[in-house]
């Protein structure tokens, strides 16, 4: 393994530990670290909403901009919205950078994720452009510092025939029109940012545009309390004849100015362009061979749309079936397919009760076909049946979650899955009717699925909230869904012990579904 790859693996372990630690108070669904994209979008909507009000009260003019914003009483609605505008913008920057860090730590920039990664990088530039420009609009001493420092930094590039910093040379250099232009830029750049965000996520299905309601309310409450406790205020008005003294400084957005002062424009531009080039080049770095993508079998695809509905990456499209008139056929876009197998789990043809010797389903994973899954399950059930005196448990576990291989024993069969979402629920019934006393399902923690939706879809399918579901009559008490991350080493053992204990206390065979053997059955 190369040194950068080793560093990233270390960063991944560290990030995962922090994220998992946040699960303790928040739970997966409400853990902001697991939903940084949605959290950032929520902050952006607060910025946009509060910005609309500020736009309405802002007077464009050298003195008017300062007066119109500065006159907002800190504890009035307008003042609170101004504070929210500032703090939400800072939180957006923080969420955006953490989102970038998280995706890098988790190695999410290759293959089917390359598009989202590449379209995300320009958004960082747009966000800082919008943020820095926003500070100029107040035209206080901080705005003066930022405007002069920004234009001096820009002037290092051979962009303008005259130095842009000349616009801020003396009070006489300024005109009211400048602020009209700045307002338009401060509206235009965020609009571009929103457009870019649409492009950033448009290849993803079931996008979380907002975090959970609990996270939204708690974050809004935290920012409102902050706005009341420490309202955003203007510094003294700008005066181009003097240099601002020590002033309150927004380090989230304006850190580039001190960085330039302490180094040089050449170094700062080298850092900015270098970092951008490095981020853009990351998807081009060598990586392990991409796994095979999902394959559609037209003879078994009924065009039911379930794979289309469940695919987390919009990799499936439907076209008219070439042979079966009136039906449609799933088509897989190999560039978008994550090879998770969630589509195979969604396919109604993936039921193991079908009599075919070789189980062929509508959409399947070459590296873990449902036929192989059925054979493996049948072999394991045959082995478990020899263990008549014990409680026999089949464990279906996501290979990316906690390591369940250690659970394998004479009375426990462990079947790893590409993703928990690959498991067709009919396999649970098949295991119970084939001799298992219970089925333990091991999925990743909520919000922690490598493929975003695997654990969620599995939970919804077995709860009957999503098709294909468990058939009526399957005793759910003989089923346990457990969530554990790769670092939760003891979780599978504890979950199995707990499950066994529950099964041991059940009246033997009272609620067991009728036995079933495919070889002896006379129907499909």
């Amino acid at each position: 393994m190369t040194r950068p790859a080793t560093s990233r693996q270390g960063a991944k372990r560290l990030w995962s530990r922090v994220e998992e630690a946040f699960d303790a108070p928040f739970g997966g669904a409400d853990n902001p670290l697991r939903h940084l994209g949605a959290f950032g979008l929520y902050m952006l909507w607060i910025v946009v909403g509060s910005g609309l009000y500020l736009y309405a009260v802002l007077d464009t003019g050298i003195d008017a901009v300062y007066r119109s914003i500065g006159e907002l009483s800190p504890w009035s609605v307008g003042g609170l919205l101004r504070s929210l505008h500032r703090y939400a913008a800072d939180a957006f920057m923080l969420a955006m950078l953490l989102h970038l860090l998280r995706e890098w730590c988790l190695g999410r920039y290759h293959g089917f994720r390359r598009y989202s990664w590449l379209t995300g990088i320009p958004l960082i530039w747009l966000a800082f452009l919008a943020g820095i420009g926003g500070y100029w609009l107040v035209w206080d001493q901080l705005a003066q510092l930022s405007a002069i420092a920004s234009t001096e930094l820009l002037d290092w590039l051979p962009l303008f025939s005259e130095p842009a910093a000349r616009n801020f040379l003396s009070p006489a250099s300024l005109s009211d029109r400048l602020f009209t232009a700045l307002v338009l830029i401060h509206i235009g750049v965020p609009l571009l940012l929103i457009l870019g965000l649409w492009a950033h996520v448009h290849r993803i299905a079931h996008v979380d545009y907002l975090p959970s309601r609990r996270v939204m309310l708690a974050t809004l409450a935290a920012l409102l309390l902050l706005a009341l406790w420490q309202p955003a205020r203007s510094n003294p008005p700008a005066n181009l004849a003097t240099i601002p003294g020590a002033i309150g400084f927004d380090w989230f957005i304006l850190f580039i100015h001190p960085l330039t002062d302490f180094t040089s424009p050449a170094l700062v531009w080298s850092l900015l362009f270098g970092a951008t080039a490095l981020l853009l080049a990351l998807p081009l770095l060598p990586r392990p061979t991409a796994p095979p993508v999902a394959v559609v079998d037209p003879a078994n695809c009924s065009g039911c749309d379930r794979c289309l509905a469940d695919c987390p990456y919009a990799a499936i499209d439907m076209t008219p079936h070439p042979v079966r008139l009136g039906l449609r056929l799933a088509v897989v876009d190999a560039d978008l397919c994550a090879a998770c197998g969630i589509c195979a789990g969604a396919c109604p043809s993936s039921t193991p009760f079908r009599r075919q010797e070789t189980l062929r389903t509508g959409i399947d994973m070459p590296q873990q076909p449902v036929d192989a899954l059925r054979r493996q399950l049948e072999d394991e059930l045959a082995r478990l049946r020899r263990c008549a005196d014990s409680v026999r448990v089949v464990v279906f576990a996501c290979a990316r979650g906690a390591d369940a291989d250690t659970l394998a024993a004479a009375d426990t069969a462990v079947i790893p899955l590409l993703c928990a979402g690959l498991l067709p629920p009919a396999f649970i019934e098949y295991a119970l009717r084939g001799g298992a006393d219970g089925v333990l399902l091991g999925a990743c923690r909520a919000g922690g699925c490598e493929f975003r939706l695997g654990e969620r879809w599995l939970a919804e399918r077995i709860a009957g909230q999503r098709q294909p579901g468990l058939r009526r009559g399957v005793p759910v008490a003989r089923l346990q869904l457990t969530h554990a991350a790769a670092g939760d080493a003891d979780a599978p053992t504890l979950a199995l012990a707990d499950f066994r204990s529950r099964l041991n206390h059940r009246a033997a065979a009272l609620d067991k579904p009728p036995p079933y053997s495919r070889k002896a059955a006379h129907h499909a």
Partner: protein
Amino acid sequence: MLKPAAIVGQALLYGAFAAFIGYFASAPKYRQIAEDVALIKLSISHLGERDCRKRTPDELAKLPPNMRAPMDCPRERSDIKLEVDIDGQPALRTVLHPTGLYKDGISTVYKRFEVKAGKHRLAVRMNDKLTRPNFNFVKEAEIDLAPARVLVIDFNPDQGGLFFK
């Protein structure tokens, strides 16, 4: 239903998040230059002169009547030589080149000089036609700069050339 420990944990973490945002949104304070320092900004944008030549009567006669301009001026502008002395010490010696592919654009300079607040002797010399041996614009003055004061050295031919403001 959230457990009390989870509620306390969430409250602490949301509080820490708000405190983190609130602190770094305005602190620590930043001072760009030291308290007892003033700033001299040199910012000049000027078109160098063109190196014109008077046409001889023979040359004029050879031209069509409608093109007999007495002066032959090339498109290119001259480089501009600029010198700045602060308290008798050379602070800048530079030659500004015209912009544009045909060197017919404006020549610009933008520099900052941080100086201690107080009295200084400032001298600026500029020659905008290098075939001429001497500086054709010179400005010298004793200046008294208060702390944090910004003094601009600019050039405007309509205001007599170099000026301080």
